[in-house]
């Protein structure tokens, strides 16, 4: 009988909260560390968008693959990439997930099914089609997820991939993380057809739009499109309408935003606050348990930062390694 308040069990709710909170603390800490000059290069933060990555990844196993974006930290954490290795990578350390050779925009861990954050917008979509093709040939019910922002959704690579996925009936889901801004340009201006469901239907696949700040909305819709893909039901598009709390990159003055916009987002559209209110309000989870997770997440990030700060930089001997498996 289903007279429980949630169809998701308590442990899963706690796991989801831990993942969202870990992503949030990771990003909030990076925001501070970038400003202090501790982080080289470009950093794009996922804060505010945690519910989408978390809810989607709960439906995936390690053999399922994801192709991420430049805003990939949340996807990495939700897919199980080690947080210490991530922090090391972002600081360019030898202890990093990619030995310091990739940085924030290229964190990958293929053993966890994470095919890489990607500095080229839209480039992940064909790669996800390839991973889905491999899964389809294996016949093991594997799926691939292509994450793309509203901006990169205008890339030919993305649109071609929608067509290819439909023609080949691939087990791939295209997740459009629509945070309203392509860098500084409004989605409403830059996307001529305005609706991702329209776009999906133009390529012969179903599309669905959900409130990306509502973990449960994403969880339910993602569960359904992923189940269909696993069972041979083909590709789908899932649009998550969401908000980013920070700029396109760290250092973005964000003058394109309306006055008070970010304050309003943090107050009224914070997916973690919304989740917390839903599960505690219904009595499914004790607030004390969530508070304990808050402390654990913060401790984990502090530990990751300490570990990364203490780790050595790669040496000159590392400059020319790992270009090829063999060469000569």
């Amino acid at each position, binding site marked *: *009988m*289903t*007279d*429980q*308040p*949630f*169809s998701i069990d308590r442990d899963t709710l706690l796991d989801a909260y831990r993942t969202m909170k870990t992503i949030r603390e990771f990003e909030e800490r990076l925001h501070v560390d970038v400003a202090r000059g501790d982080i080289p290069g470009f950093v794009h933060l996922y804060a505010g968008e945690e519910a989408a990555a978390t809810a989607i990844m709960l439906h995936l196993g390690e053999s399922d693959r994801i192709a991420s974006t430049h805003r990939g930290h949340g996807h990495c954490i939700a897919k199980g990439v080690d947080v210490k290795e991530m922090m090391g990578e972002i600081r360019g350390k030898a202890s990093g997930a990619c030995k310091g050779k990739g940085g924030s925009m290229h964190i990958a861990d293929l053993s966890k099914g994470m095919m890489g954050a990607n500095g080229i917008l839209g480039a992940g979509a064909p790669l996800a089609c390839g991973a889905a093709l491999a899964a389809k040939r294996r016949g093991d019910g594997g799926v691939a997820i292509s994450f793309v922002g509203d901006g990169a959704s205008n890339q030919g690579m993305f649109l071609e991939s929608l067509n290819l996925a439909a023609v080949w009936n691939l087990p791939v889901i295209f997740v459009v993380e629509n945070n309203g801004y392509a860098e500084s340009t*409004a989605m*409403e201006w830059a996307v001529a*057809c*305005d*609706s991702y*469901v*329209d776009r999906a*239907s133009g390529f012969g696949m*179903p*599309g*669905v*739009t*959900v*409130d990306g700040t*509502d973990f*449960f*909305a994403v*969880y*339910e*819709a993602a569960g*359904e*499109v992923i189940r*269909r893909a696993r069972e041979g039901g083909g590709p*789908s598009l899932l*649009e998550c*309408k969401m908000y980013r709390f920070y700029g396109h990159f760290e250092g973005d003055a964000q003058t394109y935003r*309306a006055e008070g916009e970010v304050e309003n987002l943090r107050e009224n559209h914070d997916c973690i606050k919304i989740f917390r209110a*839903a599960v505690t*309000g*219904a009595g*499914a989870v004790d607030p004390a348990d969530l508070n304990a997770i808050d402390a654990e997440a913060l401790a984990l990030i502090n530990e990751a930062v300490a570990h990364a700060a203490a780790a050595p930089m790669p040496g000159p001997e590392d400059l020319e390694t790992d270009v090829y498996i063999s060469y000569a």
Partner: protein
Amino acid sequence: MRVGLVANPFSARDIRRVIANAASLQITDRANIVLRVLACLGACGVSEVLAMPERGGIRAHVERGIERARNTGDERFAPVRHLDFPVTGTVEDTRRAVRAMVAEGVSAIVVLGGDGTHRAVAMDCGRIPIACVSTGTNNAFPDHREPTVTGLATGLAVTGQVPPEVAYAANKRLLVSINETEHHPALVDVALVAERVVGARALWRPESLRELYVTFADPSVIGLSAIAGFLDPVGRREPEGVMVDIAPLPADASRPDTSPAVRIDVPIAPGWLRTIGVRSWSRLAPGASRVPRLRAGMIALDGEREVGFGEDDDVRIVLEPDAVRTVDVEACMDYAARNGLFRRDERRALGAGRPAGE
């Protein structure tokens, strides 16, 4: 003579497109509907259309369409003015727009959307009639009709060519009150579900459905109200509603009090036939208040999960007669034809300025 226009770019985007091959009317098609309605309103002599501002694409396409027509000397569209306030992309835009339209004294509001959009408009429009154009998914409230005809009927009604007692019809609604402080209306159905999440909003899994209340029960429409429609049809214009007590499936042998008396297969979404267990059903008398059996859960209004309630909450559901007025398209067109309003030989201009067809 002014008319309001609410065109929702976000309706029909929910999970029913994935699970049930539901229709999804493209933004450009919605914009074309707006243009067809504007042409009809213009032909009837409507002086201005006040439109809801939005950033979902309909406005951009409509403005482009009007500009392209104007560039070629075509002035058939009624003049449009978009209300000026910041767009949030939520239902609040609809409600704010409707309040502004009421304040500016519109004679009717043309609504493009599903049951949810019509419900949002009905919350604030008071006695101002709604002209319904269906672009949603499960729509039971707005009927399916070529919008050209809806536009013509609305134009004839608001310009007084068809008298109000003919042009407008009364509709029932359900009002859910929580602790006498919160009030939530529904135009078609109120469903109570055991699960406590809004989730993907649209109610598509019947397993958690417990109670259903409907304003009318039409077996020829789809959606939750079809459950009542398949059991005990009640028309839109009849005074009563229907309440259905749902028995969850699969039945729990240890709880005979929850087991079904009958099972029916109902399209609760487009092409989505589900087996529903029913313990009992009864007529709802207008004005009488019902207290649900379910102690805690979620309330779905016109098919979308919206509001939670707990064991300490006092929830009451009342069927209200004559709560929402709509443009009766068939009645308007019938009246207009029988009274020669479409005929040019009588020299009765269809509109104040331009006869139709010139």
